[in-house]
């Protein structure tokens, strides 16, 4: 209830529902008499001070009739809802109780009925059970039932998969008992949530039936009936239709809004957006590296609420160099790659002291220029080739558009280039394959096609975010080989992101290790096996089985988990998992030189105890 009052929808809806219920209680005693008082002299009047909404053909005050009709209108809606929900629950739970064949029959019937417009079902029932409120209520109940049955089935099916239901079944608990004891109580909450909205729908539908003359018959009256009586007069006195129409809308709206607010508060996640505090970046005076393909300094990615998954990383890539960026999931490696590629999703913000591609500072370029530069000289490959290509477009078209958009190529020329690129990544029969859709490609071929997209321009930098993780081992090798060849052929540098240190050590020249958003070590791949200085890197390497690993021993693992970006304190983020952690580690170690082309951020790097502790 308190949650309901937190959203404007909930507040307004609750107010409307409360007003409807109060009117339903006090309406008939207060206005009932005025609503029935016949005054032949005042028949068919328009709005006046005495009769705010006019009078009907017997001179009865329409406003009083609308107010007094609240009880009957609401009652009919409640009855229809009870019938519909009861029937729906029954039909929905039956399949989990009945033998399989009968269950399928019920499910099939419900599915067929759901596809039927509710109004037709209501009409059918109304014909059979005769004109009048009873027929209409039954009809609307019947119309509500299939949808509710479907909802119950879906909910029940989700509960039926739960362990405690499986356990009860194993224990031989009868099916009907499972349904009443285990299934129904556990779907009660969403079912009740939906009843509120159904009530609103039922109220409006009931009004519709009465308006058509198929529901409440005179001398009884509900809102729909009042609207029916007023409808013939709207040319002369539109105001006579106003009262019942407003009542129907407001009450229907009220129940729907409450239903929606309830559903929303049930589904709410605790994500609250705080203010974005962009990281301050110190101005950088050092001269940019003229030869570097990519030069990144102090790259930081911030999300609202002060969450900083990437914290001031710096990275330089020389032409033709393949650099591996490794770390556990959540270390910020993929986000770093997105930040370099300018693809960090809203509401993340990226700041950098320097972000230069091939000597051009990207942040200083205008949008159009940057788009063209990145579109032609940066290639990106993502993890899941199954999802990376657009299922609705041909593979060739997805390649060719790069040329038409960025290089202004003609369609035929772009297509020829696309076919040539597919051939270059060794896709057999490229002319035919180019005309196919992605679902006709295997996973490995799709990843080749994605790489080919990157080769449409003249890439200087290839960013590959776990490009082989989703592939079979044999296909992985082919893709790695292709990446290496592409880099060698074109002289493009590659940033290869992976959590798989074995793949990285095979493919890359240099390895950059990230932990909790920061770079903790950077070293040539040749030193990885024997020369790693950071305990985390050492642990990563040690967790890798090789031919000498004792099969009797469990695989080495790093105890504990990486701290979330918001939880990493001021000290070394790895300290909590590190056997060597001491007082000094309460202060964050800076990244400092540790030999040739080797940097590390650890107070204990190179000391004797680290060699002992991690042996």
């Amino acid at each position: 209830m308190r949650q309901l009052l937190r959203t404007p929808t909930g507040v307004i809806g609750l107010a409307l529902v409360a007003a409807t219920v109060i009117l339903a209680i006090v309406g008939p005693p207060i206005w009932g008499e005025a609503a029935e008082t016949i005054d032949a002299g005042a028949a068919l009047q328009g709005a006046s001070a005495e009769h705010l909404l006019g009078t009907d053909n017997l001179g009865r005050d329409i406003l009083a009739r609308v107010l007094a009709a609240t009880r009957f209108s609401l009652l009919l809606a409640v009855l229809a809802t009870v019938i519909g929900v009861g029937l729906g629950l029954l039909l929905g739970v039956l399949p989990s109780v009945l033998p399989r064949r009968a269950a399928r029959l019920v499910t099939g019937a419900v599915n067929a009925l759901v596809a039927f417009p509710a109004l037709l079902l209501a009409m059918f029932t109304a014909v059979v059970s005769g004109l009048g409120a009873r027929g209409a209520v039954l009809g609307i109940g019947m119309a509500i039932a299939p949808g509710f049955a479907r909802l119950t089935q879906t909910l029940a099916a989700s509960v039926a998969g739960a362990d405690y239901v499986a356990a009860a079944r194993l224990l031989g608990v009868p099916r009907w008992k499972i349904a009443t004891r285990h299934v129904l109580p556990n779907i009660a909450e969403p079912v009740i949530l939906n009843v509120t909205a159904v009530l609103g729908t039922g109220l409006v539908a009931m009004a519709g039936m009465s308006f058509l003359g198929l529901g409440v018959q005179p001398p009884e009256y509900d809102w729909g009936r009042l609207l029916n009586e007023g409808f013939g007069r709207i040319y002369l006195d539109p105001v006579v239709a106003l009262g019942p129409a407003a009542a129907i809308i407001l009450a229907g709206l009220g129940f729907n809004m409450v239903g929606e607010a309830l559903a929303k508060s049930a589904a709410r996640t605790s994500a609250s957006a705080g203010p974005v505090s962009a990281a301050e970046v110190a101005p950088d005076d050092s001269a940019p590296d003229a030869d570097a393909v990519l030069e990144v300094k102090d790259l930081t990615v911030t999300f609202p609420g002060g969450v900083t998954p990437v914290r001031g990383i710096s990275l330089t890539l020389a032409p033709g160099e393949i650099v591996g960026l490794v770390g556990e999931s959540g270390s910020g490696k993929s986000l770093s790659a997105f930040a370099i590629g300018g693809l960090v999703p809203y509401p993340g913000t990226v700041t950098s002291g320097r972000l230069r591609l091939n000597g051009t500072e990207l942040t200083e370029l205008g949008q159009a220029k940057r788009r063209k530069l990145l579109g032609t000289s940066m290639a990106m490959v993502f993890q899941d080739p199954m999802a990376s290509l657009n299922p609705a477009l041909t593979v060739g078209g997805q390649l060719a558009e790069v040329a038409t958009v960025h290089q202004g190529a003609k369609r035929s020329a772009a297509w020829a280039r696309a076919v040539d690129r597919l051939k270059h990544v060794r896709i057999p029969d490229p002319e035919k394959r180019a005309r196919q859709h992605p679902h006709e490609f295997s996973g490995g071929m799709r990843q080749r096609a994605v790489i080919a997209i990157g080769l449409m321009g003249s890439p200087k930098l290839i960013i590959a975010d776990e490009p082989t993780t989703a592939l079979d081992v044999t296909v992985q090798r082919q893709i790695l080989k292709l990446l290496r060849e592409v880099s060698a052929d074109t002289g493009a540098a590659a940033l290869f992101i992976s959590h798989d240190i074995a793949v990285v050590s095979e493919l890359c020249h240099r390895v950059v290790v990230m932990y909790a958003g920061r770079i903790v070590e950077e070293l040539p791949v040749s030193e990885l096996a024997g020369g790693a200085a950071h305990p985390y890197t050492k642990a990563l390497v040690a967790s890798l089985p090789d031919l000498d690993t004792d099969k009797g021993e469990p695989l080495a693992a790093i105890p504990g988990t990486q701290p979330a970006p918001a939880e990493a304190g001021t000290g070394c983020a790895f300290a909590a998992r590190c056997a060597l952690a001491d007082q000094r580690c309460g202060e964050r170690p800076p990244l400092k030189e540790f030999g040739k082309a080797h940097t590390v951020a650890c107070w204990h790097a190179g000391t004797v105890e680290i060699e002992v502790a991690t042996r």
Partner: protein
Amino acid sequence: MFALRRLIRFAVSMVVLITASFAMIHLIPGDPIRAALGMNAPLELVNQRRAELGLDDPIPMQLLAYVQQILGGDFGTSFMTREPVGQIIADRLPHTLALAGAATIFTLIVAVPLGMWAGIRTENGRNRGTELGFTSGTGALTVVPEFLYSIALIVVFSIALGWLPPAGRDGLDSYILPVLALSIGAIAMVARLARVETLRELGADYVRLARAKRLPVLRIYLRHVLPNTLTSTLTVGGLLLTGLIAGSVLVEFVFAWPGLGGRMVESITQKDYPVAQAIIFVYGAIVLVVNLIVDLLLSKLDPKSTIKET
């Protein structure tokens, strides 16, 4: 293979529908003929009408005769006006289909771009204001029933402004108000679905790759996202058409539209059972046929979706 299975399902549904519409008259408690003609009707007339409907034959014979009649397009004769019911349907069905069809097309044309726009604007929780306004606005619009839109439109555009005809079917401008009345709620509903669908597609990996290709945003939305929402749009479109055919009953009643719906309401209130029975059957058959066509089209357009379903 899917088509064959789907056709069998259609045939089964058709049999059920025929049985249900046949059973309708028999399910009416008491004597439907007496109820229809009134207590004072002469006995010969009641007996004559009863014989007309074949109610004196054994039930299986009646069912057989009913099926034969329907296959021959013969739906009997109206109790009240003595018109052949087949003729009533032939006269009125085209107007109902025209109204529902126009409303469906109008709804899709307005709602899909609207929902897409809202989806793009609110991607990743951007523009909370737009999101709140869109969801509560469309939420409210879906609650208001068609007949109230009809009355409101008549009051504003026919009575107050005098721009458009309030009733009847006479020329193109007589379509405007009924189509609007039928579409407003549907637009709100479809736009909500289109927004959710667009948000889902925007989160897909292929959109990220398209962004990595640095395509212009308009190209990403129109060429990459839009085609992928078409499958669901078509599914919704089919449901929409059947829903609007049912919704048109109320709109036809308000606008005195010469379609099936108005006549159905009339026949139910007058207990003109042969007419009511036939029109409800026709509505049901339309729903089944539309659903069949949509499913078959979907299986052609998107082979994967049907594999998932079956």
